[in-house]
């Protein structure tokens, strides 16, 4: 059956371009010119997925997404943000209001179609119980699920950090009792063995955080010297930042960055990464998925 998409975009020109790309890929496409029209039309069209711009008159994309995810009949409709906004704060905000994917303009048509198809495919597999890679975190009364769809938002977030920090490799590990899942984004297209080494260094740092009693001091961001820095990969990475991710006073994971230059990071970078990590956790805490 042909999937119905609703494109929400205030620029008619951009709506035409996006619709053209999506129609060429075999989708049935409808258009709403802002968030308010989207909320009206969604009842009549019942789309399978919504492609949402952020900056629009009357109601912006964040508020539209928040209302869609709060509505009983619309909560399950996947929302893909398609926008020129690509700052860390924008991406975290998109995650916070329940967005399922975040694609930045200008985009490649095949990439947009690929992401949309991946969301449909993941939903199908999830319904059959065949997508065990979702990462579930339980923090007090919150059940937080980082789905495969939402992982892409983290990838983008990590990539956008590259413009702010001198990073070559960024990683995020989220725990549930014991290491359960991780996500590593390679900025410098490094080989697998180097990425594995980085993951190992993240786990080492995470253990250092977890070994210590949880106190206000222990939860402060800091630089940690990796125990395994002087190995055969010494030439690859010389600087690390590891910051703990906290939820409900507990460490639920780690957020790390590395660079091959010595002293690549300054204390402000540590504080910045810590703040991004805290925003991610706050955003995840607000996202509850049945």
């Amino acid at each position: 059956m042909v999937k119905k998409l609703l494109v929400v975009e205030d620029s008619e020109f951009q709506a035409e371009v996006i619709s053209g790309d999506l129609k060429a890929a075999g989708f049935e496409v409808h258009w709403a010119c802002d968030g308010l029209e989207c909320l009206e039309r969604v009842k009549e069209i019942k789309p399978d997925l919504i492609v949402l711009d952020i900056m629009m008159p009357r109601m912006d994309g964040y508020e539209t997404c928040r209302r869609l995810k709060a509505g009983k009949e619309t909560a399950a409709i996947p929302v893909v943000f398609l926008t020129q906004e690509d700052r860390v704060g924008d991406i975290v905000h998109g995650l916070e209001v329940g967005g399922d994917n975040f694609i930045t303009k200008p985009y490649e048509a095949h990439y947009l179609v690929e992401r949309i198809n991946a969301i449909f495919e993941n939903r199908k597999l999830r319904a059959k119980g065949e997508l065990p890679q979702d990462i579930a975190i339980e923090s007090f009364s919150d059940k937080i699920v980082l789905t495969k769809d939402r992982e892409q938002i983290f990838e983008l977030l990590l990539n956008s950090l590259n413009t702010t920090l001198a990073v070559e490799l960024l990683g995020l590990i989220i725990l549930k009792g014991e290491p359960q899942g991780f996500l590593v984004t390679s900025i410098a297209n490094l080989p697998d063995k180097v990425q594995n080494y980085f993951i190992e260094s993240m786990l080492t740092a995470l253990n250092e955080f977890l070994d210590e009693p949880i106190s206000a001091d222990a939860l402060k961001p800091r630089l940690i010297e990796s125990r395994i820095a002087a190995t055969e990969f010494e030439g690859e990475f010389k600087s690390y930042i590891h910051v703990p991710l906290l939820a409900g006073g507990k460490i639920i994971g780690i957020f790390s960055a590395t660079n091959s230059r010595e002293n690549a990071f300054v204390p402000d970078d540590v504080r910045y990464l810590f703040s991004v990590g805290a925003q991610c956790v706050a955003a995840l805490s607000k996202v509850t998925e049945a």
Partner: protein
Amino acid sequence: MKMNSRLMHLFKAESQIEIREIAKGLACLKNESRTMADDSRIIGELHRNVHTLKSSSATAGFHNLNEITSALTEIFRAAGDGRCEIRTDIIPLLEEGVDACRNLLEKSDKKEGTPDYENLLNRLGKLLP
């Protein structure tokens, strides 16, 4: 992206409307009887209009137009966040930016080269904190 003539016509028509709205917004900021609430609303609208123009120019492949609108977007974003003030003495420079956008859009029909906007971009960049 390859644009057919209908899409190109739509892009230009829509961009001209956005440019007119931006010029109108800047003129409103010169009105001395405006309130702080007016300022906030006008700056919000200016930010959105410039942002749409920036996004459309990127989609249409108008790189110079995209560069100028990117600079203007950052200024209106900073003004909206309270990081910089749109004082009346800087409005002529912002209007120069809008004129450049208008010229770039008009010149796209003609076979003449586009002027170098580096100087304008530098001066716009200096308005940011």
